């Protein structure tokens, strides 16, 4: 029993060691631009955590990353790499936007779920192609999803600038605005009940709550349902799973479509609360951040929530050091990159050590 605690402690500690090491190494980068690392880190914390609205911004920042991390993690459980979350969420976001601006006069409690379903559908469509190609034609999903990302970029570009451009605008290239009934309410009202007053420029909305609930749901699906059981079995030993009568292809289809459906939710928080339309500058890169988040969170739903909040904080802190210390935001990108490298190394070391511990105990 004592050994189990040791293993658990190590597992929890590993990411923190990695983060610390990454901070240590990035200190040297900060030194090269003649700034004090301590001052930079201190400013990041102070700027991020001193005020409640700043914490709310961090949570808002983390919302798309939770979805993205979960989407990557689900595929990874089956031993597949969904590099295509990027394309899947852009397609999903567009489909949701389309439903948002083309339908009017619906009550919000119908219109909002409709957008969410459209987003998921879009993500699923874009995930179906690579998994179909993999199972039917043996095309590696990494190649096909990367290619589909570029196709998605161009397709969205075309749809926004040619087909669904808002003609009432002279200067801006974007879709028409979503109907008011399609906008996701912010959390301000609920939080006010607890005496937490947030200013208007904070966009923290119900998608954060949905993301957390989804993470919990995914945890139960993966560990406690027959489907999740198959997902893990296929991911860890496809041959034994097949011998036991599990239909691997079916699991791949279901799992990858689920991954795509979750990916389709990534862009909705931005679309339905902050922008209210989709334009050519709609945020990109959440899909790739999701890979990093899943990695740091070790494909565990709760780890993913924490890793997303960490990334949300880094982004907020980056704004802080840029404004207050004139340190370029790219410093934080370096920090993030270092974090990913150190986490991979530390995980490997800790993982090997835990395996040795477990083996020792068994005999």
């Amino acid at each position: 029993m004592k050994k189990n605690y040791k293993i658990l402690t190590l597992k929890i500690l590993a990411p923190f060691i990695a983060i610390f090491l990454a901070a240590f190494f990035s200190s040297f980068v900060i030194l090269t631009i003649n700034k004090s690392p301590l001052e930079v880190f201190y400013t990041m914390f102070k700027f991020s955590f001193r005020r409640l609205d700043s914490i709310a911004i961090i949570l808002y920042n983390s919302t798309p990353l939770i979805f993205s991390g979960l989407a990557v993690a689900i595929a990874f459980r089956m031993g597949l790499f969904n590099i295509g979350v990027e394309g899947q969420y852009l397609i999903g976001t567009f489909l949701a936007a389309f439903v948002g601006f083309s339908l009017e006069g619906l009550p919000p409690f119908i219109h909002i779920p409709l957008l969410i379903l459209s987003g998921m559908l879009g993500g699923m469509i874009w995930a179906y192609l690579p998994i179909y190609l993999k199972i039917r034609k043996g095309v590696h999903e990494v190649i096909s999803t990367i290619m589909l990302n570029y196709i998605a970029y161009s397709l969205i570009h075309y749809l926004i600038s040619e087909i669904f451009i808002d003609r009432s605008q002279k200067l801006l290239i974007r879709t028409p605005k979503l109907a008011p009934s399609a906008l996701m309410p912010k959390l301000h009202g609920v939080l006010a009940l607890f005496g937490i007053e947030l200013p208007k420029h904070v966009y923290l909305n119900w998608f954060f709550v949905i993301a957390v609930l989804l993470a919990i749901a995914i945890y139960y699906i993966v560990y406690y349902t027959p489907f999740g059981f198959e997902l893990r079995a296929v991911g860890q030993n496809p041959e034994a799973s097949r011998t036991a009568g599990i239909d691997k292809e079916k699991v791949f289809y279901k799992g990858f479509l689920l991954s795509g459906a979750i990916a389709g939710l990534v862009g909705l928080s931005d679309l339905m609360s902050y922008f209210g339309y989709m334009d050519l500058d709609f945020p990109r890169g959440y899909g790739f951040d999701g890979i990093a988040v899943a990695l740091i969170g070790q494909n565990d739903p709760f780890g993913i929530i924490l890793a997303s909040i960490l990334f949300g904080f880094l982004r907020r802190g980056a704004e802080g050091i840029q404004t207050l210390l004139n340190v370029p935001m790219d410093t934080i990108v370096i920090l993030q990159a270092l974090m990913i490298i150190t986490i991979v190394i530390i995980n490997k070391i800790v993982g090997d050590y835990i395996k040795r511990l477990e083996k020792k105990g068994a005999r």
Partner: protein
Amino acid sequence: MEKAIVLKNITKRFPGIVANDNINLEINKGEIHAIVGENGAGKSTLMKILAGLYQPDEGEIYVFGKKEKINSPNRAIELGIGMVHQHFMLVGRFSVLENIILGSEKKKGITIDWENARQVIKELCDLYNFSVDIDAKVEDISVGMAQRVEILKVLYRGADILVFDEPTATLAPQEVKELFVNLRKLKEEGKTIIFISHKLDEVLEIADRVTVLRRGKVIGTVFANETTKEELARMMVGKPVLLKLDKEEVKKGDIILTVENLYLRSESGQILLEGINFNIRSGEIYGIAGVEGNGQRELAEAIMGLRAISEGEIKLVGESIKNLSIRERRSKGIAFIPEDRHKQGLVLPMKVWENVILGLHRKREFIRYPFLNVEKIQKFARGIVDKYNVMLSSINQPVEGLSGGNQQKVILGRELSQDPILVIAAQPTRGLDIGASEFVYTRLLSLREQGKAILLISADLDEVLSLSDRIGVMYKGKIVAEFKPEETTLEQIGLYMLGVYTDKDGETA
């Protein structure tokens, strides 16, 4: 006569088995010395000791008269011992020349001295009459030539003793002929050759002397021109060591499994199973004997649905199952104990209780919609752990932490829990110690008493003879003979297994 290698009292133990038991062996300089034995007789272990991959627990090794410790593959090379592996260790994209020098490149300044390497290899080819295109890419050359490249590799490194691990296993007959020409030339030039095989015809053709191993022990060394295939085969399989088992008379019931005219081809069109016919009744153990790689594994996988058959029919209780999925076959009552439990039987990183329901996880009794009924599953798992006496610290432990025997018990427990009518047991005692093996035997016999049909595939002849009601011998994808154990002998089966006898009436090859 000068001795190239002398082994004195070499013993090597692995957990649960003695792989080499007090081996004494002398290999003369300049001879071709064959080492034969069944799978698991200890040939590979012995060779790995010579190649520096394993260290013996006891005993001494003399190389050219000097006592040596071969503690690494590099040391083996330094001593002039070179291995020619059964599976070639070549880089497909590299040329023959590049492959030969890979790992021992001689340099000129900071670049590789290609001219010198080319020169040396040319000379080697001329000396031994090897026909090799040294600029061809290895991926484009034939298997026979790839093997010559392997031989050149060890010659280039200065080997005087060449160890061949089943060199003819992957060769076509004419390539075997060419290999033998090469081997004789090597011998002429004073090289010593150790030739591991279980193909007796070839051994008798090429070797000067033959040493037979059985169960880790040297049975004897004979001159090739003074012995016969039959004598060697008898030395290999030995006297019957029948296991003492309480095998009760069981009344045979209806035919459970029928296999008719079954053909199976590999993706490249090679015939793996050729016209297999047999049936198993309830209460009967049908044993398949054979040297591994003669289609036993393919047969089990074809019945289970893991491989699509090319022709023929498979029936379970009179009903065709050849188009059913694996899951459907399982739900019709087929249980499968796969030969490779790590690859096919278990998901090693998953917990014991999770492995116990692998494939059964959609059963209604284990579901509390929409979740798995973990409580009930764990109770089920504990039941199996108790019934089969699985030694573990917790059912929450990953199954990879269990010993081989306990892992096998987990598989047995799972596969037999669903009251199957047909049990396919492939190499069910492989790697298990005596205690665990006996446990498996009693389980199989009690299944027989319960009226199950059992297909037992094993490379262990004693096992097959002691347990089976009927025995089919497989050789090159065919069942070449069928016996009742009381009407045959270990030797007779051995002769069929090794391809000495090939027709069903026996006696002549």
